[in-house]
């Protein structure tokens, strides 16, 4: 197989990631509707598929409003941060053999670093809005980040130990025989939970919490600035689903079907799982999230790391 030109990879990943996350808005609304005994968007185009397009036109033509009490530069930069950090993470994501923008040998660390930076978007947006609800949302995001980032990183160290590398492509290659979801099941569960928190989805959508904080950190945003948070959220879900597929489900590995199809199937399955979570679970309180993170998840991640390390050593 020939490796595509880097520019082609960049453009390809960018287009696919963005259109996938836009498409995901439609998928989520239809799936939620299905699970909630209603129709969802079904008027614009076949099966309501063009709803996203209509929304896009609307959101691009809206007045670009910045509240007078907001901290203007920060208010403008905040939504860009989330888009940039998530899209940067896609750069190290190996989609199929040879299809990767940048095959970094520290790809996993790069991903973790970018996801930590992404939280700044939420915190800064909450702060810069000059709105108390937004501020509380931003504070919650900061508290949430501190609670889950640690065990998120730790939960992946088992995979790193088994594969012996931070290189995502090499990690996928190492799963040719056995997907890491089996030897690293605990790590998989921990990362999945951390991923939900990372994507700020129910039951961990505390910074947004529309029933409590109205819309939390993005209460004051409208137009495409709001749209960037919105798309950023779906990009985030796509990214987390892709990372789960890459790290635990063998990435593109699979029989019969082409690697790219396998990868997309795995990603899509997790996307649906994220939406199902939203359709079924209530929200946790943020002190409950913190105690879950520190008192349950963090020790479990350490245990997972210790046991994996011991086994790897013993096998030597």
């Amino acid at each position, binding site marked *: 197989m020939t490796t595509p030109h880097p520019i082609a990879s960049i453009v390809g990943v960018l287009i696919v990631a963005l259109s996938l996350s836009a498409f995901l808005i439609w998928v989520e609304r239809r799936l939620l509707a299905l699970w909630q005994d209603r129709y969802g968007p079904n008027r614009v185009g076949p099966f309501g598929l063009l709803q996203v397009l209509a929304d896009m036109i609307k959101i691009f033509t809206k007045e670009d409003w910045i509240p007078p009490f907001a901290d203007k530069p920060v208010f403008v930069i905040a939504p860009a941060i989330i888009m940039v950090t998530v899209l940067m993470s896609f750069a190290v994501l190996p989609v199929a053999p040879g299809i990767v923008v940048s095959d970094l040998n520290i790809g996993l660390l790069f991903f973790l670093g970018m996801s930590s930076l992404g939280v700044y978007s939420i915190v800064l947006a909450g702060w810069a809005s000059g709105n108390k609800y937004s501020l509380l949302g931003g504070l919650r995001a900061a508290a949430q980040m501190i609670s889950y980032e640690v065990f998120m990183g730790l939960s992946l160290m088992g995979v790193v130990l088994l594969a012996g590398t931070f290189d995502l492509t090499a990690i996928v290659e190492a799963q040719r025989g056995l997907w890491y979801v089996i030897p690293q099941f605990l790590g998989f569960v921990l990362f999945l939970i951390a991923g939900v928190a990372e994507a700020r989805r129910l039951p961990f*959508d505390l910074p947004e919490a529309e029933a409590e904080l109205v819309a939390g950190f993005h209460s004051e945003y409208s137009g495409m600035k709001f749209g960037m948070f919105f798309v950023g959220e779906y990009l985030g879900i796509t990214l987390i689903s892709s990372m789960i597929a890459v790290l635990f489900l063998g990435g593109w590995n699979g029989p019969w079907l082409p690697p790219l199809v396998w990868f997309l199937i795995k990603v899509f399955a997790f996307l649906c799982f994220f939406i199902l979570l939203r359709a079924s679970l209530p929200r946790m309180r943020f002190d409950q999230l913190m105690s879950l993170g520190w008192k349950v998840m963090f020790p479990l991640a350490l245990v997972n790391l210790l046991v994996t390390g011991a086994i790897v050593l013993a096998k030597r």
Partner: protein
Amino acid sequence: MMLSVARQPGTPSTPTATIGDELRSLVGESAVTPQATADGIPTFWVAPGDVRRVLAWLKTQVVQPYRMLYDLTAIDERMRTHPQDAPASDFTIVYHLLSFDRNEYIRIKTPLKEERATIDTVSNLWPAANWYEREVWDMFGIRFDGHPHLERLLMPRTWSGHPLRKDHPARATEMGPFQLPDAKQDAEQEALRFKPEEWGMKSGRDGQDFLFLNVGPQHPGTHGVLRVILQLDGEEIVDAVPDIGFHHRGAEKMGERQSWHTYIPYTDRVDYLGGVMNNMAYLMAVEKLAGIQVPPRAQVIRVMLAELFRIISHLVWYGTFAQDLGQLSPVFYTFNDRERAFGIIEAICGARMHPNWFRIGGVAQDLPKGWDGLIRDFLKYLPPRLAEYDKEVMQNWIFKGRTQGVGTFTKDEAIEWGVTGPGLRACGFAWDFRKTQPYSGYEHFEFDIPTGTHGDCYDRGLVRVEEMRQSLRIIEQCVDNMPEGPYKSLDARACPPLKDRTMHDIETLITHFLGVSWGPVIPPGEALGAIEATKGNNGYYLVSDGSTTSYRTRIRTPSFAHMQMLPLLARGRMIPDLLAILGAMDFVLADVDR
């Protein structure tokens, strides 16, 4: 406490003749004047100076005390035309107390003169009196000495006049055109400026400012136009002050303009999730005043529709409670179920949320053909759905984590604050007015009173969920045992009267004509009609001056008392808990503000 609950309905309660004697021995023979009322509630006039002492004695010292301040209101007596066997009074303060041991109310009245409309507060006796007294100040301009925070409650702070005084206009057209000159606008704007001290809050502690957060009046978690001012330390709630009155529509004032009959649709809109249940409380008071007997078939139809509305109201609560805690789906399921129940309501009543279906002396029409089939289908349909929601909501561990141990109050606190309904039963107190003071034939039905043990948000939920099952039981018994007979009283004042004989004799025709055009004349007197409504005890205290309209319509609503308790439940908790507490309270803003 449990003794009175276990007592079979129908047995006479504790002899009440003695309470008057005991009162006399306390304040003196001449200082207590009994008054006969249409509802049989022992009613006594005492002098304003004695009120506090009498109430304190009734609450704490008398055998089988009256522990709950059920209602506190006033009557502007200045326009009375019909003489009453009572002390002369310009403004009468009326206290309704409830004794659970006796299973009985007592009504204490005290006369005030217009020039000295002041009385001692009882808010230090019952914390619940705080809002009731503020409401009386707001509506009647009667001052309460020693009240900690005597400010307007329902009307805007800039309002001039006291709306429930008889000389206050009832309609916009009586008030002259509305004008908003700049000076007035500035004054109104200035009055809206938030000053923590005006709300009884501090602006800071140890040199640190608190964060004040307005939750509402426009907020997805408040279920309507409620404003809760939160005083925050981080996300911890230091104090919470509910600001009510946004939904105030003067329902009580309207009662003084509408005929006894035409007021019924207004009651529908008080607890707007309770539909015909509101009609029932109001009509019970009217029927007591007029001495109209409701035929058995009408009684059973009333019970059946009321229980259906209890289910409808609880379904709304169920879905929105889950949604308040972030669970997005149940609200769609329960609203679907509610639509089905509304289908039945529509088939019987012709309308859905506000059917305005009960009439003085019965209901508006007989049941339509095929009504029993519709209800039987629903009886089969709902239980499996409820079982599903149990799994999805009540047994969900995150849901339990969010509600268990949150917003807890004890039975004693509940009684102090005037809590009735599921909130009271969640504390383990099996008090249901359908059982303890049966009305409309509830004594003939078999059903259980679900109770909780912890008095927290979760138990309040459990009680309501089980109540839906019990309501289904009652409805089933209604379908199985629907008596034959007239759907409305044959009394000429039943409104509109039955038309059978109008074409046969002139007397009936004239009565019919008058009943329809002016509305019936209800004999002078006063009566309280109180029911176990969807959210607690809903009571209509009506005073008739022997005319075609009510002289005073007092609506005692459960949500008002429950909302007043919010600060107590919210202090020291976090913002998400506030939503759990509000959700578990199950209030309706129109029921708070009227």
